[in-house]
């Protein structure tokens, strides 16, 4: 080991670390303000005002919440498996953050331009379930364990539909690289994959809602029957980490939907005579954020609109409706690719 190479590692590592901080800090801030947005938007949908006490118009509410959670005591149940109990929140948040490494925020603006980034995302989102499994088991509580069983079965089931939907995307783009997938959608709003892959798009987003355990698929924390789900025994910051991971995953699913089906950082006015030059100054990042924000709004809208699914209906929807639908659409898409159906597959 010579001196220069060691210095090189430190410099390279330092630069990567700074990039990670540049991605994670805004992400954490978005998580905080997503909770605020959720309470406000659902409040307005239900003709309430929502949080409006802390700071101007309640803008400091998430900060106050975070402070409160940090000050609280973390209680570790006597009969729990202490080691696993503590490690579970880490296992939930780590994949939720690590997945952001391959997300392209604009053309070329990506931390790790991995060739198989779509596969990487799929693998990481499938690891997230371990935190939930371990949290429920290590708590040594009936409610937590029941919820764990529910959510593990649900996540594994919907992952299959989600995986098939992603297969459709990679068939269309001919690449597993998220940047290439966006570049393949170039050419205006009708060239984006939401149109040729409409069923897969809908299935992907609904599976994403189910994967993140959000309403109407939030049986994992059905508070009316199993109090609060796998994290009943968690308090303070340990609980907050689960919360952070859930919202970070929501933002991830929304961003992925924007990247894979809504043209990512591409302008929606591409190819429209007057509007395209008029909006040419808008950076790609803004379009991506706007699209992701739209999907996040859908998340909140679902929560305010739909009642919770019954558990057997969730399983039925995942296995008997979504998976056959995706397989059928993959066949249709295969025919379209072979036939060179324009403007997407030529």
């Amino acid at each position: 080991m010579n001196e220069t190479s060691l210095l090189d590692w430190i410099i390279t590592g330092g630069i990567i670390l700074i990039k990670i901080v540049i991605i994670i800090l805004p992400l954490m801030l978005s998580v905080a303000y997503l909770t605020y947005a959720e309470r406000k938007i659902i409040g307005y949908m239900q003709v309430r005002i929502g949080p409006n006490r802390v700071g101007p118009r309640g803008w400091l509410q998430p900060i106050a919440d975070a402070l409160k959670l940090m000050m609280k005591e973390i209680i570790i149940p006597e009969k729990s498996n202490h080691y696993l109990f503590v490690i579970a929140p880490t296992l939930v948040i780590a994949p939720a953050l690590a997945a952001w490494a391959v997300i392209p925020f604009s053309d070329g603006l990506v931390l790790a331009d991995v060739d198989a980034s779509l596969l990487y995302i799929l693998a990481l989102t499938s690891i997230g379930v371990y935190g939930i499994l371990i949290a429920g088991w290590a708590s040594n509580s009936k409610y937590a364990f029941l919820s764990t069983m529910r959510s593990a079965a649900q996540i594994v089931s919907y992952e299959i539909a989600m995986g098939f939907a992603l297969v459709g995307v990679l068939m269309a783009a001919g690449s597993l690289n998220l940047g290439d997938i966006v570049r393949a959608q170039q050419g205006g709003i009708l060239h984006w994959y939401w149109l040729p892959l409409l069923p897969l798009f809908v299935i992907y987003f609904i599976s994403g809602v189910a994967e993140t355990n959000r309403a109407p698929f939030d049986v994992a924390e059905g508070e009316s029957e199993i109090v609060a789900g796998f994290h009943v025994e968690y308090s303070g910051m340990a609980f907050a980490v689960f919360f952070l991971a859930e919202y970070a995953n929501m933002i991830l699913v929304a961003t992925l939907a924007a990247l894979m089906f809504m043209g990512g950082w591409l302008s929606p006015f591409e190819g429209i005579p007057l509007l395209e030059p008029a909006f040419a100054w808008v950076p790609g990042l803004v379009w991506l954020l706007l699209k992701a924000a739209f999907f996040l709004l859908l998340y909140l809208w679902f929560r305010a609109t739909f009642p919770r699914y019954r558990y057997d209906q969730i399983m039925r929807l995942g296995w008997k409706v979504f998976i056959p639908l995706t397989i059928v659409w993959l066949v249709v898409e295969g025919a379209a690719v072979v036939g060179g159906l324009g403007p997407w597959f030529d």
Partner: protein
Amino acid sequence: MTFEKLVFYILAAILVFAATRVITVRNPVHAALHLVLAFFTCAGLWLLLEAEFLAITLVLVYVGAVMVLFLFVVMMLDINLDPLREGFVRNLPVGLTVAVLMFIEMALVLRSKYFSAEAMPAPTPHAADYSNTRELGAVLYTDYVYAFEIASVILVVAIIAAIVLALRKRPGSKRQDPAEQVKVRAADRLRVIKMEAEPKD
């Protein structure tokens, strides 16, 4: 020592530790979790070999699906830990024999001329734009297409067989048919009876 070597030794140490813990810990859930760790570090080693597709697939399939189901079952089982601790001495001769045999086999293979350091020169790293996924796909769908398709047919047969074996209709199970549920009308379940008001005494 290069950076790759350092990463390799760290991952290898974790892998050996995790694999040992899989068979030495008492608690089956802990054993399963150590197996997960072993798979994960193994994927890291494969990444060092520039096999990123296989590495990620290992995480996706084994860590993300197989081990979740495994853990799912192990967590639900109410295993009495005591019988697991018995019979160590009784089974020791058999275990030792198998271990020695495996050791000899591995030694024979690894000491042969095909696996010596001369026969295995360090592979040249590929260029940054080399796509492992694309190469694998190209080979899988051209040279090995029959083997690949036969494997997929076998898997489909296994899936169907598993479903057929597990699907049984028990009497008294509260199975719900959504079609029946949708078809239900109030008139089928509810009878509105017109009754004269009872005279007041």
